[in-house]
């Protein structure tokens, strides 16, 4: 299933690499990726989409939340459904 994640990230050196590296290392293929600054220049918003089943989605959300630079991970579709 197609999922879109919205990730708020501290704008640190290497932070983007760590998110992308986590997905690669755990075998999740990123379809699209967009990074842009927010109103706070120290924070970036990373929007990415990927194909995975619901169990994998839960795991990738949890693993992404373990990255120290990550402020917030949202899955807007789940948020809307809830």
């Amino acid at each position, binding site marked *: 299933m197609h999922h879109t994640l919205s990730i*708020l990230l501290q704008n640190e050196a290497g932070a983007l690499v760590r998110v992308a590296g986590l997905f690669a290392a755990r075998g999740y293929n990123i379809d699209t990726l967009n990074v842009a600054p927010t109103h706070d220049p120290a924070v970036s918003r990373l929007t990415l989409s990927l194909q995975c089943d619901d169990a994998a989605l839960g795991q990738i959300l*949890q693993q992404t*939340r373990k990255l*120290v630079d*990550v402020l917030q991970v949202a899955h807007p579709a789940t948020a809307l459904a809830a």
Partner: protein
Amino acid sequence: MNAPALKADTTTDRHPLAGHGMSGAEVIVQVLADEGVDVLFGYSGGAILPVYDAVFRHNAMQARADGHGEAMHEAMRLVVPANEQGAGFMAAGYARASGKVGVAIVTSGPGATNMVTPVRDSMADSIPLVVICGQVGTAAIGSDAFQEAPVSNIMGACAKHVFLVTDAAQLEATVRTAFTLARSGRPGPVVVDVPKDVQNTALSFRGAGELALAGYRTRLRAVEQATLGDADCAALFDALMQAKRPLIYAGGGVIAAEAADALRGFVDAFGLPVATTLMGLGGFDSTDPLALHLLGMHGTAYANYAVEDCDFVLALGARFDDRVAGVPEKFAPRAKFIAQVDIDPAEIGKVKRVGWHHVGPLRQALERLTAWGRAHGLQPQLAAWHAHVAELKRAHPMDYDRTSALVQPYAVIEAINRHTRGRAIVSTGVGQHQMWAAQYFDFRAPRHWLTSGSMGTMGFGLPAAIGAQFAQPRKLVIDVDGDASIRMNLGELETVTTYGLPIKVVVLNNVGDGMVRQWQKLYFKGRFAASDKSLHKKDFVLAAQADGFGWARRLQRVDELEPVIAEFLAFDGPAFLEVMIDPDAGVYPMVGPGASYAQMITGDFIASRAAPATDEDATSHMF
């Protein structure tokens, strides 16, 4: 000088050195001192020279302040390995044996890349480390400079976190934060990459302050403050009281969370038998009647049969790793209810769906559950299950060929154990000797068993023993190693004698990679590709003597075993014992890759419940 910072620091607990001018390197060393670091493991080099010089001057100054004319006792001992990988495993051994953060300091490029294996190993086993790496100057980063490596990229993929300090003003807070990150939540290694110009920058020491890390700290607070409500406790006990054959599956989290006493209290209250993972050994006294010792691929037959038979599993700081739950859907197949407590939310349901879980500190969770169950007068009636477990232990004990003319490795471990009885710190390499040690030693208390559990890094044992001896100078430290594993970091034999450490090194020599051979026998029709070392020329005893071991012997005869082991362990100083073991000795029981516990092979000397199915030609992609 920074006026607002000074103002903020004018409190009673203001650091005595706050406001002092220091170089970046001095700031690093001062933060280490403030964190209580008394020993560093590391190797110098161009890009880290300022920090090594600052350590030297710190120790000289402390010695003068203590009134010593010369540095008799160094405040921050610096232990130099043969290879940076050794330093990393020493720091990890120190951390595992003490519960404190282990610290390693290495130079840029090869120094840092040699540290990758210990960092990944510590991540996989949740061991707190702080690794400080020198880096080429900020202006040279990305220029393919001499001894440059992209450390934040490389380490970012295998550490809990990595900082590249490009702003010297952030250095002090970054190093302090590294310790908080390493020890908090699920512990792990944190790497701080410090360019040489940052080490040389003139700074004003603040004496306090950490990086904000809003996301991490918010999540950490939520986990650390999580408590079990009445409904949570009631739900768990409802299931437990209905269970007839409940079992605890205890992992390394019991050790990391300092929860062994709380586990003891829970078991005393409710009587659940305990099976322990490789990382959890020492979390529950293995000599207890309710202890099932090790479960999993090379677990005891009685532990694995108990897992087959149980109807309720409480997983404590354990993650259903593939060495325990090789086939997750066949793990504990009769369990009607599985509950899990872990500090890491990502581990809940990662491998095995659970019916009840709690994410939070394990010790508090166990204490709360014990108090709740006692307050409600809950007492599971487990007499029949206890009798069943006792019968499993009686009918399927660990055993081996006790009549063989060749020295059996199991007998060596048993002979050492008769002296140590779970009170020595034991480190290992990886392979058969590691499993024999895990199976045949008694484990009475946490932090006495140091092994590379998840990564399975050969060469771990010797440097880990060195680190542990620095952490526990009065404890007997034994490295149980294999001939192939010890070769990987054999240079550290010299480190043992250089620092005069009374470590006992025993090499179970089966002339090759025994575990690889065992798999080749089982799954590759006995083609011993690259695992036979009978043509290798190494004389381990001569090697140990050359490195200054005052006691070094080779043991080949069964009748020499007891007296030689006694003499070896009693020697006052570094001692090295090579034991030529039966090269065909195997590790049993064995739950093969892709097999269930019911299909466990128990070998010729451990009674099996059922004849194992033979599918010798099956090629498994499991590992």
